[in-house]
């Protein structure tokens, strides 16, 4: 596929993103003017952040996959740092945690070299076994299992799962790619974000007691029920532009991503509940934590990656 067309596709995608953000901003300003509410400023902060993220993304996407890959690796670093900061860690594991951080450049290096066979086992096998070994070598047994399991969970979600988002960038063209790996990457990010927004709005609109969940107040069963068709529609609209998915495949992939995004969100909510951070709204004050931003992607990235691989890379 010629480079020029790739750029054109990206431009159209960003045009869409900017239109959606502009509509959201206009809606927010109108709402603030006509019906001022105290909790509206939170929505405003979210929209502002979305603009900033879109701007960073725009720069990163047009500067090429290498920069974008570094960007995702950095996101992974911020997410792991936040995870290790909000979960209880043991003083004796301080140096072990340093090596947990070292795994990030290694994992994303594997992505850059396209070394798929090692990429899929590096975190779940090697890091998973080696970090507890380092902890044993320090010798503190009190709270060992809890610390090892917590660290393993953090590595799998913040480094391994996010790695799939980066791996999309280095996928070779499957034959008829409108925008190659970068198209798949953008598709995942845009569809996940819009799916998030639809589920958030549905949860706000339909929050009758019968629909409520135990672990969170910001998502209800209506978020899931309505999010599936909404995300399927978004996916169906965006897929021809950015992915090799056929229309029916796009609908199925979209529906699956709505479910995985929902699960990712409520899983993070359960972790916050466990750590008594529930009432804070976000894990870190101000703009909300990194984990809150990537909770849905953590679950959607591996799912989307393998669905695309099964459908367009492996069957022939």
């Amino acid at each position, binding site marked *: 596929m010629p480079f020029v067309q790739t750029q054109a596709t990206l431009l159209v995608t960003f045009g869409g993103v900017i239109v959606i953000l502009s509509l959201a901003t206009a809606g927010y300003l109108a709402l603030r003017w006509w019906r001022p509410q105290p909790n509206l400023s939170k929505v405003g902060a979210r929209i502002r952040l979305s603009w900033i993220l879109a701007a960073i993304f725009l720069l990163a996407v047009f500067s090429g996959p290498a920069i974008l890959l570094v960007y995702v690796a950095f996101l992974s670093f911020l997410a792991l740092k936040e995870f290790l900061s*909000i979960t209880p860690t043991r*003083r004796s594991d301080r140096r072990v945690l*340093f090596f947990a951080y070292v795994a990030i450049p290694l994992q994303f290096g594997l992505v850059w070299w396209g070394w798929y066979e090692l990429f899929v086992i590096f975190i779940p096998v090697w890091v998973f076994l080696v970090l507890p070994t380092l902890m044993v070598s320090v010798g503190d047994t009190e709270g060992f299992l809890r610390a090892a399991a917590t660290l393993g969970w953090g590595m799998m979600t913040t480094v391994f799962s996010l790695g799939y988002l980066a791996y999309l960038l280095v996928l070779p063209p499957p034959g008829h790619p409108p925008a190659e790996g970068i198209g798949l990457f953008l598709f995942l990010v845009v569809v996940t974000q819009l799916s998030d927004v639809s589920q958030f709005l549905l949860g706000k609109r339909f929050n009758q007691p019968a629909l409520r969940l135990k672990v969170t107040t910001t998502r209800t069963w209506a978020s899931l029920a309505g999010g599936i068709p909404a995300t399927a529609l978004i996916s169906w609209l965006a897929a021809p532009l950015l992915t090799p998915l056929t229309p029916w495949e796009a609908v199925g992939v979209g529906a699956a991503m709505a479910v995985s995004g929902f699960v990712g969100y409520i899983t993070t909510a359960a972790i916050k509940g466990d750590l008594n951070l529930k009432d804070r709204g976000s894990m870190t004050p101000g703009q909300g934590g990194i984990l809150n931003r990537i909770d849905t992607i953590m679950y959607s990235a591996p799912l989307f990656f393998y669905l695309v691989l099964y459908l367009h890379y492996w069957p022939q």
Partner: protein
Amino acid sequence: MRLLQILFFVLIVRPLIMVVLGLNIHNKERLPLHGPAIVAANHNSHLDALTLLSLWPINRLHQVRPVAAADYFLANPWLAWFTQNILRIIPIERRPEFREEDPLALMSEALDRGEIVVIFPEGSRGAPEQLSEFKSGISRLAERHPEVPIVPVFTHGLGKSLPKGDFLLVPFFVDVSIGEWLHWQDSVEATMQTYEAAMKQLAEQLKRPAWK
């Protein structure tokens, strides 16, 4: 020299504190932007002073003076040049037998010039993420300047990132919680009690898991 200080903070300190560590500042509006003021924080790490200094906008930086131990930070001429010209410390002699003059005199002069004095009343970094006993120097300073506010600041996370006696920096988010301004309470004991209560309250509000 002011340019060197700005470059050092913009190019080295801020990227380190903001990106490698990451700051959550609670109640930033309570940070005194203009002196004179006494900012009194807990002490866990060499990064404490750098973290606190990076709270202020670059154009206020020259007004902020961290108090640091003379026996440690003036130990050799290179370190002394750096700490006095770039960090702009106010040296304090911790060992009474070496004190030739009033140990609070330099801080008192700084307050008279309208500067912001940053001080760690624990006196030493101590065990990571644990409060040790506060020394009463801030109260004695407040006694001489009853109109100057004492701003309690509680930090959490720096003792995890770089504790005393370790050189390996491990990234953790850092919480900086700024308390309400306190004033001289007519006695050293009462002022210290008010300060201690404020610090305990800030620590409890953070609700961070204990580091064992």
